[in-house]
């Protein structure tokens, strides 16, 4: 990307808080604050972290049959999504690969969609092109922050009592310090928490109010990645991409029964075939037996030295206290407990296939 990196409405606040700024998908974002990645990770699991995710794309879809039309692009059930509820899904391509993952919320008179920072330039034209008669509006004047962790309910609830009563994947519009926000009870760390869409001119004020809570600290992209990895959540571009089918990626749960059976989304034929016949490879959790972290790209071998897959995300899991990884492995090696080798810097290191997630999810059902 040749353009100068973009800044979110919270840029000055990040700098003030000591955030170490890096270029991420064309945005200048905090990778960590003075607490450090490990400290921020542990703080989020113990109390609450505030994450700036304003670089993600917020989109409004408006039109009488927006839900039915969106179902032609994604395999989730959108027409049956109740008002005030959100759902995880993905755009599929004609080969049944994943073009991006996203969250869709039924906001009553419109659908509210959040897509990845690195893919918003693809996703918005994709929707505009295929959602005939639907108004597709990307929002540029709102920040988006996530408050995640067991104390998130108190951090947000102290400023917005109604938020305490929300359940997982619920969304509503409510005031925080007099500012009208969209609050959704979800996030990408495996913890209970909220994503809050805030008018950009009030974003700093609202974040300062959230950070004023003694349990809430700012958290950067570094810990965001280790938290989502421990939670077994896929990162687009690493664990899922145009070549992976949702069945390989163990995302079958995100395709509701009617959609799986009826199809009617791009690549449905391949996905239905994968569901019926199984896939040659599967996304699995991997626990290196030693202490050396195994990162994306590391080759997986069976004990005879035959290549059987590769790591797609990996590193040190602060909550686990050991290295953790995710990757694709030939299906016959995908059973938890299976012993494999990781080729780290040319040497075979023992590891074991394990069930995901590494850290139990703590959502408020």
């Amino acid at each position, binding site marked *: 990307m040749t353009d100068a990196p973009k800044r979110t409405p919270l840029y000055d606040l990040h700098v003030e808080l000591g955030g170490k700024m890096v270029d991420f998908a064309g945005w200048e974002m905090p990778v*960590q604050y003075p607490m*450090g*990645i*490990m400290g921020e990770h542990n703080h989020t699991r113990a109390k609450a972290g505030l994450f700036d995710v304003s670089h993600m794309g917020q989109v409004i879809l408006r039109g009488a049959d927006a839900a039915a039309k969106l179902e032609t692009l994604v395999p989730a059930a959108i027409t049956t999504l109740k008002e005030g509820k959100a759902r995880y899904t993905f755009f599929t391509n004609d080969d049944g690969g994943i073009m991006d993952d996203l969250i869709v919320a039924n906001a009553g008179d419109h659908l509210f969609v959040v897509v990845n920072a690195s893919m918003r330039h693809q996703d918005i034209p994709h929707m505009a092109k295929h959602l005939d008669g639907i108004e597709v509006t990307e929002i540029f004047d709102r920040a988006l922050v996530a408050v995640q962790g067991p104390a998130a309910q108190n951090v947000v609830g102290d400023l917005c009592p109604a938020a305490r009563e929300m359940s997982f994947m619920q969304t509503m519009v409510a005031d925080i310090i007099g500012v009208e926000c969209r609050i959704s009870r979800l996030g990408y760390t495996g913890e209970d928490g909220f994503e809050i869409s805030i008018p950009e001119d009030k974003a700093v004020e609202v974040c300062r109010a959230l950070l004023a809570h003694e349990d809430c600290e700012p958290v950067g992209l*570094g810990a965001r990645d*280790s938290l989502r990895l421990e939670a077994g959540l896929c990162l687009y571009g690493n664990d899922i991409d145009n070549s992976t089918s949702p069945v390989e990626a163990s995302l079958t749960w995100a395709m509701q029964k009617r959609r799986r059976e009826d199809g009617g989304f791009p690549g449905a034929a391949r996905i239905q075939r994968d569901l019926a016949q199984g896939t040659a490879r599967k996304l699995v959790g991997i626990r290196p037996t030693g*202490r*050396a*972290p195994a*990162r994306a790209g590391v080759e997986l071998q069976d004990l005879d030295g035959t290549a059987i897959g590769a790591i797609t995300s990996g*590193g*040190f899991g*602060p909550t686990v206290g050991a*290295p953790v990884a995710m990757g694709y492995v030939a299906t016959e090696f995908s059973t938890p407990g299976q012993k494999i080798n990781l080729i780290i*810097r040319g040497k075979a290191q023992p590891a074991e296939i394990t069930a995901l997630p590494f850290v139990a999810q703590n959502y408020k059902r």
Partner: protein
Amino acid sequence: MTTYYSEEHEWLTVDGDTATVGITQHAADQLGEIVFVEQKEVGDDFEKGDDIGVIESVKAASEIYAAVDGEVLEANGTLEENPGALNDSPEGDAWIYKIKLTNTDQLNDLMDLDGYKAFIG
């Protein structure tokens, strides 16, 4: 004993033809929280510029490059169980190797403390 510093952010405290080797506090701070150290074994020999180990932080893997030619006399085994010591005391208890120097002339290419401080600015 004299301590020398390399542009790769290592320190060597030299006593005769042996040296204790580690990474500087500056390097440890830049790496972030260290979670794993891969070391060479006693008896392994190496040349200046060789990759003689890897330090893995939460963020990334970084090679340790030999500042001089030598041979490993001892690797600090406590780093296996407690790699985080490299953040707490990189210029103290958390040394990485004791080595035998095989070309002491190479020490002339390294920096003293003032030179290193100027180097890292």
